């Protein structure tokens, strides 16, 4: 009989340190599509130019067995240095940034501005008929703000996807 822990899906935020080389992103993305794993978000950028290391943050979900598989599959990619399951390893900070364009005039425009203030979003572009807000926070916070903007003239959203790091003194490099 399958253990219920193996069938209940959970979310996982996984950090992967990789060689900064051509094709590495295709390898990671191809692994997820080829094996049918789910990707909620994926971000990548170099974090150590001297050592040619990039960091990929993947938010995924699956049963415990699937998540263990995902980590093992990532780890066996030749250019992968390290895989860390931030969700499993303890408290971590996860942040996402969004640029949100709202088009409107009159009361809607004022309401959008008031809400932006309440969410501590900053205005990074403004015209008579539009704003671009910049908002950083948890994905939930971004979702909530975007939902509020919808009736107020939401025109366009661009999100970075999640970056994450463990809390406390321990480092992924140690």
């Amino acid at each position: 009989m399958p253990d219920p822990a193996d069938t209940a899906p959970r979310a996982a935020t996984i950090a992967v340190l990789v060689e900064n080389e051509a094709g590495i992103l295709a390898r990671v993305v191809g692994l997820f599509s080829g094996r049918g794993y789910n990707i909620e978000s994926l971000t990548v950028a170099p974090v150590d130019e001297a050592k040619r290391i990039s960091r990929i943050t993947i938010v995924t979900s699956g049963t415990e067995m699937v998540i263990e598989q995902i980590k093992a599959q990532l780890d066996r990619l030749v250019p992968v240095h390290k895989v860390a399951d931030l969700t499993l390893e303890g408290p971590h900070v996860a942040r996402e940034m969004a640029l949100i364009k709202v088009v409107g005039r009159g009361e809607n425009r004022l309401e959008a501005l008031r809400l932006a203030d309440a969410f501590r979003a900053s205005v990074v572009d403004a015209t008579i008929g539009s704003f671009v807000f910049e908002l950083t926070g948890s994905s939930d916070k971004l979702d909530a703000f975007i939902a509020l903007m919808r009736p107020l003239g939401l025109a366009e959203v661009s999100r970075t996807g999640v970056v994450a790091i463990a809390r406390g003194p321990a480092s992924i490099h140690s």
Partner: protein
Amino acid sequence: MSATAPATAADARTMTGAEIVLRALKEQGVEVIFGYPGGAVLPLYDALFQQNAIRHVLVRHEQAAVHAAEGYARSTGKVGVVLVTSGPGATNAVTGLVDALMDSVPVVCLTGQVPTHLIGNDAFQEADTTGITRPATKHNYLVKDIRRLAATVHEAFYVAKSGRPGPVVIDLPKDILIGKGPYTDPPAEPHRSYRPQTEPDAEAIRRAVALLKRAERPVVYAGGGVVNSGPEASRLLTEFVRMTGMPCTTTLMALGAFPASDPQFLGMLGMHGLYEANLAMHGCDVMLNVGARFDDRVTGSLAHFSPGSRKIHADIDPSSINKNVKVDVAIVGDAARVLAALIEAWKADETPQDKAALTRWWRRIDEWRARDCLRYRQEGRIIKPQHAVKRLYEITRELGRDTIITTEVGQHQMWAAQFFGFERPNRWLTSGGLGTMGYGLPAAVGAQIAHPDALVIDIAGEASILMNIQEMGTLAQYRLPVKVFILNNEYMGMVRQWQELLHGGRYSESYSAALPDFVKLAESFHAVGLRAEAADDLDRVIREMLAVDRPVIADICVDKEENCFPMIPSGAPHNQMILGRDQEGGAAGVTDEGKVLV
């Protein structure tokens, strides 16, 4: 070329890219390459022409080049090397690469590429080889800087053979092959990020031994990883099984890792495995898996797989562990290292084994053995395919020659697995994971090149053999005395069997119509053609085939409608096996859930 490093002409280590490649191959111990030329790799062929250290074997199709390299690798434990041109050369190689990936065979495949400045322009014979082969390889490289060329070749060999072995592609643009650059030696540290664990964790070994010592109904389930690890692992497996008195079964990929003649050998397990092996797996209380991957051909229905057992799994690839079956003790490490550690820990652990329980367990196994699940009846003129393999086995054993068997894919492959006994590893070469029809003949080319004095036989089906039949030309050119032993049932027998059992006997497109005359076909390829049409011809044809020191095709006309049993239908549990026509079976019906499985 702008990519060329600024090196002085006096530097003896400055050479063309093609020369760098060959020098690096030589440094890696390469003696032979299987390949096929074309525009993009002409510089490499030119460099090959001007040296004698590395031999090139010209195949007739790039897929065959990879299978030949696999045959070479699997029969020697070395890395097999392939050289093909860009575009169609590379795409033709893809099936072979995936085959090597699925069966964990170390192969380095050099592919030509259009010059770097034309990449992405849809140039003549351009294909996105690294894109296409990314999911077909363990790793791949596109070399864009000649200064990285030698290091890339060295690294490719390290990646291909370490950890879980697999195929590696190096895509070589033509300007890199022509340009000049520095040759560099293999680095002291083989890789920055890839360092697989080979030494098992002592605590995991201790827990495994504690379980095994207390087992009342243990079974050892050994897989291809034991063969991958090298002959020492097979020796240690045999030692461990004998010292513990446990029964041992192997997968298709591990035939020969444990001696077939040993009384503790239960035979192959799985879909077409032996009754006793499958029932032992189903009924055991402790299972030790060494280097096998709980493949669906082996487990059948996962929900019903070995329901009462504690499972120990030793594998070099952590992703193989807990992938299909959740285990109680996970041991990451190389099979030989794991087995050596198990032997040591077994001796150190003073817990006495429950010998009485083990005796009872063997008594039950012997009852299952008494079913004689492979029994068949050879009566009358018509040759039973099982009988053909059995006689081939017995007659080759009489000869006492070192014998290597390759196979194609289908019923004949399963009969070969069931009726040919292997005492040593690296003598059984078959396509297990991908199940590639057309594997056997080119794999035999590779094996015969590696072992010129061995007897190499491809046990084939009449449909499969046509998939790489052009390699008869390679046999002729290099005078490779490979024997092609065709179990000709005039059907894609394995397909016909499923249609009979699962699709109401509607034999849709599974008849082998318009077959060539294999005797004449052999002759036109400068080989010897033989045919056995009746049971009385069989031994004579086998003996004649084995007596000639030339390539032979033996066309063995066998019973057209024989099925391969035992069979666990897809998705069924181990204890629901279909036995032969002559034997009252287990369950017959296949569920709809089972029908969707392949």
